[in-house]
């Protein structure tokens, strides 16, 4: 198997945590190639693709990809394009990661825009796939239909759900609720073949078993995701603070075996990153503050996406949904 290209300089905790995660993944048997500056220390002997520049978190995504052609992000995408790597992963600038993947790896034919698909944990069952989680701040109604197609493939391939329930994120369950975009998308989704569209869903439904795939624009999706992360973190911290008071110590000790798995379920580092669906290659986006553990899990997801043929499955679904037949 070709290695996974790891952007060694992407993320708030790069390169230390990124390298540690890459090394752990390699030790677990997943081939990895780092993309970073020549002479980078701490690589532990892992192979390195040299790149002299770094796209910073606050760089303009589209411009930086053009101006920093020898950046770790661009070189990682080129490694996949040129057949030197099977997938790429970065915890760096999300917009620039998308731009690098889009410009170097290309779009699957027929895809209007790639979307970031993020698994949102649901206690006791499979995660809900939320897309777009931030690639496209503004979208068109027909793009949301494609997001539904791609999200359904992802849910089916990764979680084994035969006919994933697709919901359109809005401000009420009734078809007439929402802005013009949501109303237009509702009509298109209702008529789209091959999608198990269940109608509008609300934010409170995302972390339940009512829905398997939630589609929305990237602006809303990103706000939802960050709100969920922040809320969960606050609730868990408050809960732990409350039950670890000295007077509750015995109760806390008894509850910990039940609480720790719940904590692990909600820990973003265990999610393994989001995937950019619609790109002609596997591109995993890990969150900016990724730890070594997040990187290991992200690399594992990248490997899984390659092994299960996610890109080809998306390609087939898009071709079928647009009524085209592709050769090769």
């Amino acid at each position, binding site marked *: 198997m070709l290695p996974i290209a790891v952007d060694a300089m992407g993320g708030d905790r790069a390169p230390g945590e990124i390298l540690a995660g890459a090394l752990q993944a390699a030790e677990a048997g997943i081939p990895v190639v780092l993309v970073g500056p020549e002479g980078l220390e701490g690589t532990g002997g892992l192979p390195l693709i040299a790149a002299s520049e770094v796209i910073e978190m606050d760089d303009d*995504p*589209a*411009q930086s*990809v*053009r*101006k920093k052609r020898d950046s770790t992000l661009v070189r990682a995408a080129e490694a996949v394009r040129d057949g030197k790597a099977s997938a790429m992963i970065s915890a760096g600038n999300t917009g620039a990661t*998308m*731009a690098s993947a*889009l*410009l170097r790896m290309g779009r699957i034919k*027929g895809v*209007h*825009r790639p979307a970031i698909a993020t698994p949102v944990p649901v206690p006791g069952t499979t995660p809900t796939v939320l897309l777009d989680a931030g690639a*496209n701040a*503004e979208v*068109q109604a027909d793009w949301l239909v494609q997001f539904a197609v791609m999200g359904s493939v992802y849910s089916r391939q990764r979680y084994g759900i035969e006919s994933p329930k697709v919901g359109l994120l809005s401000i009420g369950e009734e078809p007439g609720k929402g802005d013009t975009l949501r109303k237009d998308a509702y009509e298109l989704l209702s008529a789209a073949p091959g999608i198990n569209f269940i109608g509008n869903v609300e934010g409170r439904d995302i972390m339940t078993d009512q829905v398997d795939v939630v589609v929305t624009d990237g602006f809303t999706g990103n706000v939802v995701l960050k709100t969920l992360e922040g809320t969960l973190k606050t609730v868990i911290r408050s809960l732990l603070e409350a039950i670890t008071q000295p007077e509750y110590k015995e109760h806390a000790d008894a509850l910990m075996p039940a609480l720790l798995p719940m904590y692990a379920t909600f820990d973003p580092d265990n999610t393994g990153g989001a995937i950019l669906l619609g790109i002609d290659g596997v591109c995993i986006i890990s969150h900016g503050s990724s730890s070594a553990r997040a990187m290991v899990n992200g690399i594992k997801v990248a490997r899984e996406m390659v092994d299960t043929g996610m890109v080809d499955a998306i390609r087939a679904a898009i071709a079928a949904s647009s009524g085209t037949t592709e050769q090769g």
Partner: protein
Amino acid sequence: MAGIDRASVLGTVARHLADILETDESGITEDKSFVDDLGADSIALIELVDSLEQEFSATLDGFSFDDDELAQLKTVRDAVDYVMRAHGA
């Protein structure tokens, strides 16, 4: 550099743009605004610039758009003009 003509440049720009925007090439004329008429966003424009650089590098070695001038590309005509100027036409 010889042999490049405006109609073929327009055709090339329209072909790439139609491919990127998944739209009908015949509707792309010089007077069309990228954003207002064709609905292209910043990523689509960068895709266009990137693909045109690859295409026209074949006729003009090292052809590229100056990043500082990208903001001036408002219409299809602007892109065609840029390519023509670069080719000395």
